[in-house]
């Protein structure tokens, strides 16, 4: 077990190293000039040269690469050329806001998808089942940016129920004192008792979270449905049936637990995917998270920021996979042999 653990850990570091190196070279290939981003509009040639010297872009690429590797091991990701803040600070500020969004949409997907999937397995091949399966296809085939705009159109444009974009309205921060500071707006305002800020944040998160949840909803639906159908073929289920219990009763009282393992695996995997898939939703809803930051960084060739973002994404992705593997190895001892 211990050796398996160490093996996986080494592999994890190796993958991070590969990804960061690949990104380092792809980024150098981007068309824009990062130095002109740093010095601003209409620079003189001297200004450009001085900036290039200070930022170290005048050195040969292999030297830049070596110092880049050295900095990574001390967790120094440099300074964003666009915002002029340390990349580490930017990432930690934005990570919590993306994490909050993903967590919230996961919650929606699970709360809607799980019961619907169970019912779909129960009423197999009925109109309801077809409807649910159709919904699954739609969830997988919807362009998220389009869904986001359509929701904005309905809930902001026509009904005027929810705000268009952003994480909170600027004025709702007036006269608020957050005694709690975790970076998650909803949690902080809730525990600080700042109700107006809490409800404002809630109103702002609903549309982006709903948009993101639909893709996962399809996956949760399908997994629940097929897992439940497998469970219904098991001997224990048939035994209950022969005692005279109804299908719905058995599922409600006990059989739903058998679907929790595959469903939670899928949720864990989609969590990593969703964290890395917020680009479009965050751009539409002007959500100050990692996705928006990445898009802006790529569009402006902000080298340190792009590398930092990719590293953070890969780290989360690899860590989630690592945890799932370790979890499996603990549950099923055959795997690491």
């Amino acid at each position: 077990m211990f050796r398996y653990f160490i093996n996986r850990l080494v592999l994890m570091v190796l993958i991070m190293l590969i990804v960061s190196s690949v990104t380092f070279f792809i980024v150098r290939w981007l068309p824009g000039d990062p130095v002109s981003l740093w010095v601003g509009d209409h620079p003189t040639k001297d200004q450009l040269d001085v900036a290039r010297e200070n930022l170290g872009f005048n050195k040969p690429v292999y030297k830049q690469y070596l110092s880049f590797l050295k900095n990574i091991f001390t967790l120094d990701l440099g300074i964003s050329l666009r915002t002029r803040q340390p990349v580490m600070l930017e990432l930690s500020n934005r990570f919590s806001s993306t994490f909050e969004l993903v967590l919230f949409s996961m919650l929606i997907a699970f709360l809607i998808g799980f019961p619907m999937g169970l019912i779909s397995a129960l009423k197999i091949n009925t109109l309801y089942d077809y409807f649910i399966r159709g919904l699954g296809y739609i969830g997988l085939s919807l362009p998220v940016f389009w869904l986001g705009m359509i929701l904005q159109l309905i809930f902001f444009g026509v009904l005027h129920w929810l705000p268009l974009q952003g994480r909170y309205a600027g004025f709702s921060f007036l006269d608020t004192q957050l005694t709690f500071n975790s970076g998650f707006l909803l949690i902080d305002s809730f525990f600080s008792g700042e109700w107006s800020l809490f409800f404002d944040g809630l109103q702002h998160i609903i549309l982006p979270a709903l948009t993101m949840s639909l893709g996962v909803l399809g996956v949760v639906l399908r997994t629940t449905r097929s897992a439940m159908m497998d469970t219904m073929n098991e001997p224990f289920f048939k035994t209950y049936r022969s005692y005279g219990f109804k299908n719905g009763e058995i599922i409600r009282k006990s059989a739903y637990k058998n679907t929790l393992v595959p469903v939670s695996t899928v949720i864990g995997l989609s969590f990593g995917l969703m964290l890395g898939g917020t680009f479009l939703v965050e751009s539409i809803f002007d959500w100050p998270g990692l996705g928006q930051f990445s898009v802006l960084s790529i569009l402006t060739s902000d080298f340190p920021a792009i590398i930092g973002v990719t590293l953070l994404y890969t780290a989360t992705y690899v860590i989630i996979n690592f945890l799932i593997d370790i979890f499996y190895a603990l549950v099923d001892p055959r795997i690491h042999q």
Partner: protein
Amino acid sequence: MHLLILEFINNMKIFLQKLFLKKSALSGFVFLCGLLFLSVFIPFISPYEQDIYGAVHFETAGQPPSFSHWFGTDTAGRDVLTITVRAGFYSLKVAFGVVFFSVLIGVPIGMFAGVSSKRIDEIIMRITDGFLAFPPLILPIAITAALGPSLNNVIIGISISWFPWYVRIARSQALIISSLDYVSISRSMGAGKLHVIKTHILPNSVSPILTQATIDAGYAILTAAGISFIGLGAQHPDVEWGLLITQSRAQFINHWWEVFFPGIFILLTAASFNIIGDELRNTTNEKMLNSG
């Protein structure tokens, strides 16, 4: 060789007949064929064919759907129906392009890894893992940005990010089939790696690869539309669904039709590929159950 081809065609025919017994797969297929046909011939059908090439008519700008413009017109006065249908051509091109290049790169590498020694196999698979460790979207976006924004570069960017999946499928297929008795016998009689790949592995890998390719075609369209939406994909005056939607971002609250229709087309096309892929998988599974 001729016999082999004839047999293959015959098998395909039975397979397709079975597949299209499923109404959902058939309707998906009909939709895709219709879209392909219309998008190719729309310049000859539509009275607004010059809109495809970026014509501007301010006198008809921003009209809601009406009898003369079924899907309305956009801010430049272009007929939304004409440009939306035409955009289907580019999206289908992306779908086929991505699948073609991913299979072309991925499958040979995977099969080679599957029949090679353990060490070579290990090296190939670790490199593949490195590609897959990138979060989705960020690698295609970065590659497209590096190559310069255009639809062809989107195809290259997505293919480079996705070919590792085909390496995996082809490799696992190669491993399964080369462990079968008749393959070991043919190897013991002196058949080389290339011969094993050509006569045994390749014909037996068609259906899992085809299934994956069909599903990926749908995702390729979604991804390409997303990249165009950010501004790194197709460029004006080309028409592409993601681009059409992003061009209407400033006024979509008042002009719903400019965003709604291209999106519906993306949805239907991606769903068609998805459904066909799913039924393809079910049909092959049934076939395996029946024969084994």
